[in-house]
């Protein structure tokens, strides 16, 4: 039995009257990459946002069920700010703040009360190295982050997320706005990051899920259809619908 980082039990989510997630049960393993796949509108993006409560921002969202992080219910026992420090997120569209590269990475630690310059310097450098963007960033730390290319911006956003030392990293279609080369670099990076972090990634590309993930979960119309080892899901799925989707018959 592997170590479970996140356990989701009987999770339902409603936007007003519309039920977007139906009775989801998932275990997410520590230091593995779990990919969430499925056609658009299937609930995979909605689901990943429940893991660090980003859905709280949306008007009229109602959630029931349990999401346990290391055995604590994140909707009951954990302060949302503490939760988001432990469960970081990288978004679909690179969203560096309109400030310097350094300030972007230092933003998180500063938000959590780190003031000392020497410590911040160290965190910034290590985070940028971990996100494999240090070589490109080191000479332009004081420059505006918006001057970076899309792929660089996304790696900067990963560095920014790492700077608060999360345990889990959520990635919501992190390469959908990037070209193939930048995508490849992010994929390599996730491979390295999983040694230390638990990663959950939403992707619309089955090839990507196949390349990088250990586990794959297939969503359809708000239901979790099937979850298992990526190899198995892609070669020998249990459910006919998963097979149809994987082989490109719909979606």
């Amino acid at each position, binding site marked *: 039995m592997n170590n479970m980082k996140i356990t989701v039990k009987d999770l339902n989510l409603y936007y007003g009257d519309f039920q977007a997630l139906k009775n989801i049960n998932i275990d997410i393993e520590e230091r593995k990459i779990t990919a969430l796949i499925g056609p658009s509108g299937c609930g995979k993006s909605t689901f990943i946002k429940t893991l660090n409560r*980003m859905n709280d*921002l949306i008007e009229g969202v109602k959630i029931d069920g349990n999401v346990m992080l290391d055995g604590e219910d994140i909707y009951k026992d954990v302060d949302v700010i503490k939760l988001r420090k432990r469960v970081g997120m990288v*978004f679909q569209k690179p*969203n*560096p703040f309109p*400030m310097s590269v350094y300030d972007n990475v230092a*933003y998180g630690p500063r*938000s959590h009360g780190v003031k000392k310059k020497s410590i911040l310097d160290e965190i910034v450098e290590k985070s940028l190295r971990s996100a494999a963007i240090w070589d490109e960033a080191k000479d332009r730390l004081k420059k505006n982050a918006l001057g970076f290319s899309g792929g660089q911006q996304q790696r900067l956003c990963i560095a920014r*997320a790492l700077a*608060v030392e999360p345990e889990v990293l959520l990635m919501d279609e992190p390469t959908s706005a990037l070209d193939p080369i930048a995508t490849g670099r992010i994929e390599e990076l996730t491979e390295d990051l999983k040694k230390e972090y638990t990663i959950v990634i939403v992707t619309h590309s089955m090839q990507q899920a196949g390349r990088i993930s250990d586990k794959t979960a297939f969503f359809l119309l708000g239901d979790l259809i099937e979850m298992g080892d990526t190899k198995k899901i892609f070669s020998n799925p249990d459910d006919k619908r998963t097979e149809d989707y994987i082989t490109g018959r719909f979606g």
Partner: protein
Amino acid sequence: MKKRNLSDNFMKLFIILSSIITLGTMIWILIYVISNGIAHVSWEFLTEFQEGQIEGGIFPYIISTLYIIFITILIATPIGIFSAIYLVEYAKPGKIVRIIRFATESLAGIPSIVFGLFGLIFFVTMLGFRWSMLSGALTLSIMVLPTVVRTTEESLKAVPNIYREGSLGLGASKLRTIRKVILPSALPGILTAVILSIGRIIGETAAVFLTAGTAKALPKSIMDGGRTLSVHMYYLAKEGISMDKAYATATVLILVVIVINFIANKLASRLNKKNS
């Protein structure tokens, strides 16, 4: 086919004629006033004055105007910005927000003379501030509030949502997100709000002369009365004592408005560039 072209051309003619009237009127006013006034705008005119004399320069009226601008901005800007932050970042749609919006819209529609009447009984008489810079500024603060709120709201709404998500996703608190990410991005818009308010304060007459008074004197503290440039302009026009001074004062007012509009436009284009 011919008939269609005819009516098309007819409408086109009206459209172009209307545009010429609009543009022409503006150019006419500008050129007429400035060409008659600019010769009388001298250093002495701007810096000199004799106590109680209308013939002197406009120095005390410039000072009164600056006084009122300064205090009004000091009061209205924080309230207006906070209000906009509440409406955009915190408020959930519902009754209270609808009432706030309706109140803001209504405030924007109230004639300045009514603000003047209110300031007169409330600030001047009831609170005992007399005709003073303070009474004038307090009255104008209410008057420019809708401008500040609406312009700031627009600029906050223009800040992309992904910035909010990014900051909150890092575990930053809401207040920190607003302070460090949202407000800096919205800054040009907020400055535009301030500039537009200054424009309204300079141009205002009816609300000021009932609350700050019409004294031809140099205010020495915020409790002193005095007339702003626009109020002075009104008396120059009304009494017709000195046409030269009237043209010159009107010229000064127009030039100030041109500068203000120029700055507001520059800020607006910066904001557009930043968020595109």
